[in-house]
Each structure stands twice: as C-alpha cells, then as structure tokens.
C-alpha cells in the first residue's frame, strides 16, 4: 500500500518535542503500562512470565512490569526523532510485534489511551485540547506504523 505521509505543522512539532523532552520516563512508563494492564486486563496475556499480576496492587509493585514500561515508552523516541518518516522507522519493531510477540494491533490503541491519561495527569491544565490533539495524532501515527508489517 502507498504510504500516507503524516504532515506536521511547526506548532505540532514543538508540542511533541516539548512533551518528550520534559517526560519523566521512569515514572510515566511504568504508570502507563500498569494502567493498561489494570484497565484492560486482557492485555496481560503478553506478560505471563513477568510474575505476579494478580491484582492492581501486584501489578503496580511488579518490578518487571515497571522496567518494561520504561522500555516501551522509550520505543516512542524513534518516532520523535523520525517524525517525517514514522512508518519506515518502525518497520523492524512492527515485524517484531507481529511475528515474534503476536500482539493484536488493537492493543496498541489501548496502551496509547492509557499513556494519554497518564501524561494528562502529569501536565494537568497544561494538557490543553490542542496539546491533546497533537499528542493523540502523534500516537496514532506510531500505532499505524506498528501495525503496518502485520499480514
């Protein structure tokens, strides 16, 4: 299929750059992944080897989950650095999620919704409607790119 190149305004680039340069990965990463596993428990299917996920408390105190949350969040750095070529940048990661991890691409949407909530909580009133719109547009581009190599 022909690539649809996502266009970014100067303002949008600035918003994304600002969010990620001020992002506390060690805090936001674990929180976003934990929230996803708690709010959408079926996503736990990919974490059966991570230890105790019995309830919300167990998930929130699970060190393996926390470490993985940080790793996943850093996975977005690729898009921040390649905003004009997100699809190409995620070819390998897309293949990984499809061929090796077997993650249903719909799950990506669930995780980015939780990430949006966590970032909103951190930014408070600074998370204005246009900031939310830009952030969600960015995340949607990543989600789309991650789904591209599935067949």
């Amino acid at each position: 299929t022909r690539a649809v190149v996502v266009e970014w305004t100067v303002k949008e680039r600035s918003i994304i750059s600002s969010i990620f340069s001020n992002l506390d990965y060690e805090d936001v990463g674990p929180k976003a992944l934990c929230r996803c596993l708690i709010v959408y428990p079926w996503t736990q299917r990919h974490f059966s080897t991570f230890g105790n996920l019995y309830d919300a408390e167990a998930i929130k105190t699970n060190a393996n989950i926390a470490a993985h949350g940080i790793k996943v969040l850093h996975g977005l750095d690729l898009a921040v650095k390649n905003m004009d070529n997100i699809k190409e940048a995620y070819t390998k990661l897309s293949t990984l999620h499809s061929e090796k991890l077997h993650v249903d691409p719909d799950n990506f949407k669930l995780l980015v919704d939780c990430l949006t909530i966590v970032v909103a909580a951190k930014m408070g009133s600074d998370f204005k409607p246009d900031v939310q719109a830009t952030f969600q547009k960015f995340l949607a581009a990543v989600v789309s790119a991650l789904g591209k190599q599935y067949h």
Partner: protein
Amino acid sequence: MTTLSVKDKDTVKAFWAKVSGNADEIGADAVARMLVVYPQTKTYFSHWKDQSPNSPAVRKHGVTVMLGVGEAVAKIDDLKAGLASLSELHAFTLRVDPANFKILSHCILVVMATMFPNEFTPEVHVSLDKFLASVALALSEKYR
C-alpha cells in the same frame, strides 16, 4: 459490555461524590476537548455560531452532558430503565452516531486525569470506563 460489579458501582459513586462539585467545569472541558481533538464531532453542532472551546454554547452543553452523567450515577442500578427517555432523545431527535459516545467518554476520562490526578487511579479509571460504556449502551438502547 459487562455488567457493573458492586465494587464498580461503589467506586463510581465514591468518585462522583468527590468530583460532582466541579461537574460544570468537567463538562465544559470535556466537550471543548472533543470538538478540538475529534473535529468530526462538530458536525452535530453546526447550529452553533461559536464552536470555540470557551464559547457559552460549549460550556452550556458541558453542563447538560454532566447532568446526564449525574443522573446515570443516581440510576446506576438500572441504567436501561433510568436512561430510557435520554435514549429516545439521542435515537430519534439527536441521532448521534453511537461511536461518538466512546469519544466523549474518553474526553471525560482525560479531564478527570488532568483535574484529579491523585484520585483518578487505575482502579477508579477501570470502574469509570466500564460505567461510561454502560451509559453509552443504555443510550443506544432505542436506536434500532
């Protein structure tokens, strides 16, 4: 979706008790966000001259929406019966595509996160998400 557990209902009622004092502000912010983040939703408000985030029409509509949410909390034990007339309104008069209920619910959750970051825990989030999905289902009841 699934039925709400006793825990879900208690969680929603307790959270609502904490935040309902800010219902107007929550509603105004949620509707404003929806119109900006999901521009296709503006199609339902073409009769408003001013669709900008702080316009009186947007703020007023936010109040209306949150009054509906409050009503749903009060009738949480039987949403289908409790929201029957609201369902008729949405089905026959407003004819809002039910996909938009999910969109507005998401915006409400985002506002909860920005305004109540400490109270809007993952546990509250899951119960509130289930509740809003149940409300959406009850509102869709009369569509067809």
